[in-house]
């Protein structure tokens, strides 16, 4: 990574971490995670399942909200505040700017996810007073959630490179929702015929496949997650995120910033 990209990434990280909205979301997520044992006490026999489901869902939802709303403002805010021009007047390419912003926010999300994961394990320890091998399995689900974030950040950046913040948020949110139904869309393609089948197949490969990244329910029941799935999901997230960044780059490099 070039020093210019690193500098932009670091500044983006610092800027987003300082953001009050971000702190509020993290605080709320942590609060929910620590409240989980209380929810567990009012249910019967599913305390651990409930804690895992609730905590991981909270990590996923709040991280997604951060990815979308901070992601879409990365470029638009710089244009609005006119801070983009002094950056681009230096020997910094538009591509480096976009890539730097991407890595900066990804770093923020990594720290946030790690903090929330720590909160989860703390809550789990308070509840069970012990860690088992099954609890380590939860880390895979958290890792998949982070992979989900790096895809969503890429999409938010892509949409913000050509659209207004409001529409970018709508587009990114729609892609997120569609992505959670990607598996259903492929099943739908299996049972349909004709042009709808091909349309469903094409759409299912174009939208992000978030179905296979969601293993929350499976780890809550201590189901085995194949190692191959971990490797392929990692590859997939990297490919998809890189594709979105490239598309954002292509659009942003042609955008008239005057």
């Amino acid at each position, binding site marked *: 990574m070039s020093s210019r990209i690193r500098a932009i990434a670091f500044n983006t990280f610092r800027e987003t971490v300082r953001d009050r909205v971000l702190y509020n979301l993290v605080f709320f997520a942590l609060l929910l995670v620590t409240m989980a044992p209380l929810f567990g006490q009012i249910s019967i026999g599913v305390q651990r399942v409930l804690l895992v489901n609730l905590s991981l869902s909270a990590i996923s939802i709040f991280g997604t909200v951060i990815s979308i709303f901070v992601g879409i403002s990365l470029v638009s805010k710089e244009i609005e505040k006119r801070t983009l021009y002094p950056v681009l007047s230096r020997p910094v390419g538009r*591509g480096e700017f976009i890539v730097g912003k991407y890595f900066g926010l990804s770093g923020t999300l990594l720290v946030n996810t790690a903090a929330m994961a720590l909160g989860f394990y703390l809550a789990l320890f308070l509840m069970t007073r012990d860690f088992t091998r099954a609890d380590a399995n939860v880390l895979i689900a958290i890792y998949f959630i982070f992979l989900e974030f790096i895809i969503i950040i890429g999409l938010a950046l892509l949409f913000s490179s050509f659209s207004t913040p409001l529409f970018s948020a709508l587009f990114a949110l729609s892609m997120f929702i569609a992505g959670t139904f990607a598996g259903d869309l*492929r099943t739908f393609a*299996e049972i349909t015929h004709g042009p709808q089948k091909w349309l469903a197949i094409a759409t299912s490969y174009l939208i992000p496949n978030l179905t296979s990244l969601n293993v929350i329910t*499976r780890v809550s*029941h201590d*189901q085995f997650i194949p190692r191959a799935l971990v490797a*392929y999901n990692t590859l*997939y997230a990297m*490919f998809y995120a890189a594709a979105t960044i*490239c598309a954002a780059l292509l659009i942003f490099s042609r955008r008239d910033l005057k």
Partner: protein
Amino acid sequence: MRRRATVFSACVLLICFLGSFFTLRRIERANLSNSMEDVLFISSPQFVKRASLGYSGLLADIYWMRVVQYFGRKHLRDSMEYKALAPLLDITTTLDPNLVVAYEWGSTFLDQPPPSGAGDDDAAIALIRKGIQNNPNDWHLYFTLGFIQYLGKHDYLAAAQTFEEGSRVPNAHPWLKIMAAKMLSDAGSMDTARYLWQNIYDESTDNNLKQNAALHLACLVVDQEIPQLEALVAEFRRRFGRNPASWKELAVAGALKSIPLDPLGEPYVLRSDGSVTVADEKKFPFIRISKSASSD
């Protein structure tokens, strides 16, 4: 310089997209053993209804799509278990109690024996009774209930009563009354079953329902023809002291004019023990006679 950067970015975009495409195909293969599809995280229909924040109609439609996909996926794999089907249907019909299609089709999914369905007559009856309670003026639901009581439970008296009740609903189809009478006179006969399926075939505007009725009619033909063919084989055995080796032998002996074909145009299979079956039993999932013979 800028052009080169654009070409480079476009190439990387294409490579990454292709990479994601092929990786996704690998993921599908690695993730095949997803055994969590029968897990229903929220099983309380009332909770789901409250959580829908007033958008229960929309949520019911989404749940109905899930039911169809769940059933379709399991059906494609010839699954013998449909654990989440009844709870999913319960949630769907609680969210929208007037979604008649969910009661009609849902009870069919539940009623048909595995692998064509869940084979749970009681759950099917409970669902359709819920439908009648919520839509007392829809005669189709009485018909479906009577149908399950007749073919699934073989409770002809209850079926006659249901058909009779249904016939009193405004705008009910006249043959509900006929069915009520047939249930009391000759419910166990094949003619009654044929009459029922023929009516469904003639009256239905839904292609899937029509196909299903046509399949049942074809299975009834098979159920009727197999004993006739086996009687011919028995007669041959009585005359020659052995089973015929082929249909040709039966034709030469004058028992048959040509090789007998099933309703799909495939020749019936003559087994060495003299029993007769269809070439592909999967194509006739509702036949009774041939299956029981093969399991003997």
